[in-house]
């Protein structure tokens, strides 16, 4: 069976003329940029996901497809308009509709009359080999040091920015001067983006931690903790999830997102020999055992497993987000209502699509925040009484 069913490599574009673009997903740009720049290739960033982008996506895609595809397609179109001619995308067939994205996008882009080369690399088996092959194809770079440099800086940037994000989630509800953490994060985003040398990139994570630790926080504040779970793209893309982490953080709730790009990258790309600790997925499978006996594609088992994990580790609530008509997440939504009852943990499910109004969601989030806060206070009072 060939793994490259969908990717017909086009060699008509000269390597020199190639301008690479890729769809946006959260902070993936930082790493991709580092990698592509390390390999001496030119690239274009599609504009940030906005309402305008979404409109382009909606206009050119079919009605029933899920939201991430619409945004991906819009990114392709906008990048091509800006002059890109090589599109890169990873793919994981056998999970859900995601495996069909590039196939559909190619058809639509051909219909619109664009000339481009779509370079798809599989994330199912022999991942590292396929990834390297894809990047060799677009850059024709044979210098191993450049690959080392690209991957090293890319990885380290991903780790640094995700650390910054984790700290931001922790500090935002606790900071004494409001807005400080956010400012710090923005500063570091810029620094991480601008760092290029391998050595500096390796130091980034440490420096991020040091700098965030300088922010004054109120340690005694009662801060309920929430796990943010759901579909991969929606979790990582701040436009699609309407910056739900910020909304929750401003309401005084600590968000712990379970899916980070760097974790996933590490798990997917590192050969299993070097990956010693229990991966997020393995942990999820272990915890979900009571409710699910098989993985069914997408992030369903992670969602269920993490919910059980959260309930048994003192987390106060779950916010579960998914794009409309996402198949695996509908299954997990069905299962979560039972998990919520049996493990005694409140769950808020938010379904996002292009019609979602922000105001309605904010009301629901506020009500949920109130609920878990009161629950937490009640519980800690009970604890105190028992101690007395």
């Amino acid at each position, binding site marked *: 069976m060939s793994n490259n069913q969908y990717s017909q490599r086009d060699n008509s574009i000269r390597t020199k003329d190639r301008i690479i673009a890729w769809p946006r997903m959260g902070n993936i740009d930082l790493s991709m940029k580092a990698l592509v720049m390390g390999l001496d290739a030119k690239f274009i960033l599609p504009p940030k996901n906005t309402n305008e982008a979404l409109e382009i996506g909606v206009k050119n895609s079919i009605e029933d497809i899920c939201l991430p595809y619409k945004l991906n397609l819009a990114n392709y179109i906008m990048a091509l308009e800006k002059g890109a001619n090589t599109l890169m995308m990873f793919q994981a067939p056998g999970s859900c509709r995601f495996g069909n994205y590039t196939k559909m996008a190619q058809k639509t882009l051909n219909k619109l009359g664009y000339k481009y080369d779509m370079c798809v690399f599989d994330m199912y088996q022999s991942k590292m080999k396929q990834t390297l092959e894809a990047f060799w194809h677009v850059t024709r770079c044979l210098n191993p040091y450049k690959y080392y440099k690209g991957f090293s800086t890319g990885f380290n940037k991903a780790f640094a920015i995700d650390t910054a994000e984790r700290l931001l989630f922790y500090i935002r509800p606790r900071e004494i001067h409001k807005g400080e953490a956010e400012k710090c994060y923005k500063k570091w985003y810029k620094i991480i983006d601008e760092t290029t040398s391998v050595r500096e990139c390796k130091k980034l994570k440490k420096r991020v931690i040091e700098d965030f630790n300088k922010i004054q926080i109120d340690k005694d504040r009662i801060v309920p903790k929430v796990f943010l779970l759901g579909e991969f793209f929606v979790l990582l893309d701040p436009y699609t999830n309407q910056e739900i982490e910020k909304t929750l953080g401003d309401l005084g709730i600590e968000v712990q997102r379970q899916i980070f790009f760097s974790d996933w990258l590490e798990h997917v790309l590192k050969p299993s020999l070097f990956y010693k600790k229990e991966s997020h997925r393995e942990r999820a499978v272990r915890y979900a055992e009571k*409710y699910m006996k098989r993985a069914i594609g997408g992030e369903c088992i992670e969602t269920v497993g993490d919910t059980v994990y959260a309930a048994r580790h003192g987390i106060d609530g779950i916010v579960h987000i998914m794009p409309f008509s996402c198949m695996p997440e509908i299954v997990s939504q*069905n299962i979560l*209502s039972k998990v919520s009852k049996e493990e005694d943990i409140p769950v808020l499910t938010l379904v996002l699509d292009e019609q979602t109004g922000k105001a309605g969601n904010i009301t629901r989030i506020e009500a949920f925040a109130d609920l878990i806060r009161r629950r937490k206070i009640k519980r800690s009072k009970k604890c105190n009484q028992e101690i007395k």
Partner: protein
Amino acid sequence: MNMIKDRINKIGIPRAISYYNNYPFYFGFFKKLGVDIVLSDKTTSDIINKGSHYVVSDTCLPVKVFVGHVINLLEKGCDTIFVPSIQSTGYKINNCSKVRGLPEIIRNVIDKPFKMIEPTLDKTENIGLRDFCFDTASQLNINDISLVEDAMKEGWRVYDNFIMMAKSGLSYEKALHNAINDKFEIKQIELVKPLSVVIMAHGYNLFDERISLYLIKKLEKMNVKVYTSLNVSVEDARNSINALGEVQYWANELDLTGTAAYYLLNKKVDGIIAMSAFGCGPDSLMAEEIAFHAKKDGMPMLHLNIDEHTGEAGFVTRLEAFIDMLSRKKRKLGGKRNIVKPVEYKSKETEKEAIFTK
């Protein structure tokens, strides 16, 4: 003696999802094993309502119907229920998540005590049909290897008969009825009708008369010849997909894209009707794929979306308009009549791999 005492002698099969494509196999298999089958009642609005009551609103109609049938079986007093999880039917050819996770949904949404027989078929992970059958048997506490093997053979026999009869043009119900009662009958005379259409739909949507709102019967009443996935062999479907330059991605793709592509390529039909449940992920892509090729070839296509609220009147109007359009188009073109060739039969060997890939 202990083993015989412990074994489960009654199994309930919900009349939904995999029932519609695979029931002849299940029937032969369980009969030979000596297990009595209890079927749920045919789908009614009541069953759909009961099903919807248990799951979240975004769940698609077929799954709601499945849950309804499970409830129906429980109400009948049957407490062992067969809920297979058909994950993939080929390497990286997967089913929709909701079908893959049927046992997970059922386990978690129904809070009544019952035993679930939940074998897995996952060819990506090398869990083939043989493992599927042995898994089923061992969950029923049947450990006699030769008996299970005989039962599999019996299952194939009934299934092969069913497929042969259905392909010759017998209606789904008749073919099923004959296969179960061990009769064999082939439709010899093919009446040439003025119009013919192919319906691309999942078996569980099309052959469930309540879900499809008697679509086939309605079309036949309008004097239209209807082709379905039962009329196309697995190989033809597979080859047709490749001939269109597509790659099979979904397990049900042969039923939908394959069938439509087969008739699209040999121009046997005047139009294509795609019927899918609202919010169905695979269907949205497959229908689009066929629409793309149909548009290129100038083949008219109607896309019908169904959910539990579908009103029959609106449905009929759309159907009538489509058929009217087809007949007008045909008259305009000079009424070149398509002569329907008798369907060729493939040898039994090739049929063997048919099950569960269809």
